[in-house]
C-alpha cells in the first residue's frame, strides 16, 4: 500500500498521477472469520480498524449491503463536537474528540478535520439556562465549552443577525472552539484503507439475510447474499437498519428509525467561518471547503426507511436560516436528501453485548453519530475483542432500558426530537 507523503506525491507527479492504485482490496468472502462486522459505515470500519490495530484481531470481515460509507456516513452534516451534558456522554464524545485531533496522521489519510468552532445559539430564557448549565457541567468535566454574549457571538460569526426585531432574537451562545467539521467520506475511506492494510476483508454488495445460531444459542455465522459466512462473534453496526438485522437474531430493540434531512446550497466563496446550530428555531449550518453551505434539517415524525422526507421540514429550517443570516436570503439550494437514523428513547447510543452470546451491537446514535466515529469504533472493538465493555461504553448497555439507568441526553442533541 502506498504511503501518502510529499515525496510520494512528487514521484507520482512524474507519471501524471496515473499509478496510484486501489486503496483497498475487493476480496471474496472466506468461509469463516474470527469477527464479522455488519455495516461498512464509519463506525463499522473504525471498529474493524481498531480491532486489528489495538487488539491484534485481523481475521475480520466487514459486510456491507451497498457500498462503504454510502449510508449515514455519506449523508450527515460532518459536524464534530463533544459538549454533551451527562458524565457518561462527556466521556464517550470527548474521547472521540481526542482521537479526531490527530486522526489524519494516524490513518495517513487527510480527513480534513477543521477545528473551526461550533456555536450553539440561545433564543429564549430557557435556552440560556440550559446552555449555561451545559457550559458549567462541561467545565467541571474538563470539556471545553464557553458562554458568549450576543455581541461576542457576532464577533465570532459576523454574518449572524443579532438584531432585536426578529422572531427569536439571539440571547447568547455556547461555543466549543475545538469542535468543527471533518470530511465524512474521507473518514470512511481512511478507516477502510487502514483496516485493509491490517488484512481486514471489506466485502461490499453483500447483504446479510440471516443470523445463524448454534445449538447453545450463540452466534455461529451469518447468511448473506453471497452465501453463509461463519464467525463466533458478530458486531451489528447497521445504523437505521439495526432493528431489521437484530430481528434476524430474534432480539427486539428500543429503536425507531426516522428520516433526518440535510441539504446543500450552491457553492459560494468563503463567507461563513464556523458551525452555527440553533435548536429552538431549528437551523444548523457550516460551509464546506467546496463553498456549499451544508445545512441540517430535522427528523420526520414517523418511522420510515425511505431516505427522503417531507418538504415542510427543510422549508422550516431554511426559514430560520434566512432570518438568522439575512445575507443567505437569495441563495439557491442545490439538493437535499435524507438519512435513516435509529433513535433510542433516551437519545443515547447502545454499545455493547446483547442477550445472544457472541452478538454485539453498536447503534442508537440517532441524529448525531458522525462526531463519535473514532471513539465509537475504539470502544466497540474493545468490547468485541475482550468480551466485556470498555470503561467508557460500560453505561451504554442495552440492559439500561430494563434497569432504568437511562442517559437522558435529549436536551443536549442538536436536533429537536
Amino acid at each position, binding site marked *: 500500500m502506498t504511503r501518502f507523503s510529499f515525496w510520494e506525491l512528487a514521484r507520482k507527479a512524474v507519471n501524471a498521477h496515473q499509478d496510484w492504485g486501489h486503496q483497498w482490496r475487493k476480496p471474496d468472502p472466506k468461509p469463516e472469520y474470527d469477527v464479522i462486522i455488519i455495516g461498512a459505515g464509519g463506525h463499522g470500519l473504525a471498529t474493524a480498524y481498531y480491532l486489528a490495530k489495538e487488539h491484534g484481531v485481523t481475521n475480520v470481515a466487514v459486510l456491507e449491503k451497498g457500498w462503504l460509507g454510502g449510508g449515514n456516513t455519506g449523508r450527515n452534516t460532518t459536524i464534530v463536537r463533544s459538549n454533551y451534558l451527562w458524565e457518561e456522554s462527556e466521556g464517550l464524545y470527548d474521547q472521540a474528540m481526542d482521537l479526531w485531533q490527530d486522526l489524519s496522521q494516524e490513518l495517513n489519510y487527510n480527513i480534513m478535520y477543521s477545528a473551526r468552532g461550533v456555536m450553539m445559539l440561545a433564543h429564549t430564557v430557557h435556552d440560556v439556562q440550559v446552555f449555561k448549565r451545559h457550559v458549567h457541567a462541561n467545565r467541571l468535566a474538563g470539556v471545553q465549552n464557553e458562554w458568549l454574549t450576543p455581541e461576542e457571538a457576532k464577533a465570532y460569526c459576523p454574518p449572524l443577525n443579532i438584531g432585536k426585531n426578529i422572531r427569536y432574537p439571539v440571547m447568547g451562545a455556547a461555543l466549543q472552539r475545538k469542535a468543527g467539521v471533518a470530511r465524512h467520506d474521507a473518514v470512511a475511506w481512511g478507516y477502510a484503507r487502514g483496516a485493509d492494510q491490517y488484512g481486514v476483508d471489506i466485502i461490499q454488495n453483500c447483504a446479510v439475510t440471516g443470523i445463524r445460531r448454534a445449538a447453545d444459542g450463540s452466534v455461529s455465522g451469518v447468511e448473506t447474499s453471497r452465501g453463509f459466512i461463519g464467525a463466533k462473534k458478530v458486531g451489528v453496526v447497521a445504523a437505521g437498519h439495526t*432493528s*431489521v438485522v437484530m*430481528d434476524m437474531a430474534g432480539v427486539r430493540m428500543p*429503536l425507531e428509525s426516522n428520516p433526518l434531512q440535510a441539504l446543500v446550497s450552491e457553492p459560494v466563496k468563503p463567507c461563513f467561518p464556523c458551525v452555527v446550530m440553533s435548536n429552538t428555531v431549528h437551523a444548523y449550518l457550516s460551509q464546506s471547503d467546496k463553498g456549499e453551505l451544508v445545512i441540517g434539517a430535522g427528523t420526520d415524525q*414517523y418511522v*420510515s*426507511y425511505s431516505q427522503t422526507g417531507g418538504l415542510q421540514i427543510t422549508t422550516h429550517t431554511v426559514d430560520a436560516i434566512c432570518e438568522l443570516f439575512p445575507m443567505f436570503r437569495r441563495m439557491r439550494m442545490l439538493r437535499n436528501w435524507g438519512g435513516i437514523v435509529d433513535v433510542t428513547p433516551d437519545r443515547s447510543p447502545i454499545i455493547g453485548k446483547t442477550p445472544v452470546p457472541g452478538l454485539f451491537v453498536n447503534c442508537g446514535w440517532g441524529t448525531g453519530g458522525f462526531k463519535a466515529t473514532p471513539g465509537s469504533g475504539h470502544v466497540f472493538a474493545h468490547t468485541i475483542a475482550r468480551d466485556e465493555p470498555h470503561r467508557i461504553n460500560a453505561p451504554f448497555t442495552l440492559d439500561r432500558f*430494563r434497569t432504568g439507568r437511562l442517559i437522558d441526553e435529549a436536551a443536549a442533541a442538536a436536533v429537536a426530537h
Partner: protein
Amino acid sequence: MLLIHCPWCGIERPEIEFRCGGEAHIDRPGQPGDLDDRQWADFLYMRSNPKGLLAERWRHVHGCGRFFNAVRHTVSDSFVCVYKTGEPCPDLEALAREGAQ
C-alpha cells in the same frame, strides 16, 4: 409531505394537520403490579420498527383532534388503510401479500 385520510372526518388532509403517535396496538398492561422489569421495558421501550408494513397511531390535532390508526409501508411511505381506534389490527401479512401482487 404525506397526505393522510382521517377516518373520523372522512377527508384527506396534509400531514402538517396530524401528529404521529408511534406504533399502534401496544396495550397498557391490565395488571401493572404483576409485571417485572423486563416486561415493563418491553412495554415502554421496545418497538418493532419494521421495514415494511407498520400499524401506527395518528392524531388529527389540527382537525377533529381524535386518534385513529393507519397501516403504512415504511419504505414507500404510502398508506394501505386507515381505521378507527378500537378496531382490530388488520392482518399485516395478508396485506403485504396483496401489496406484493
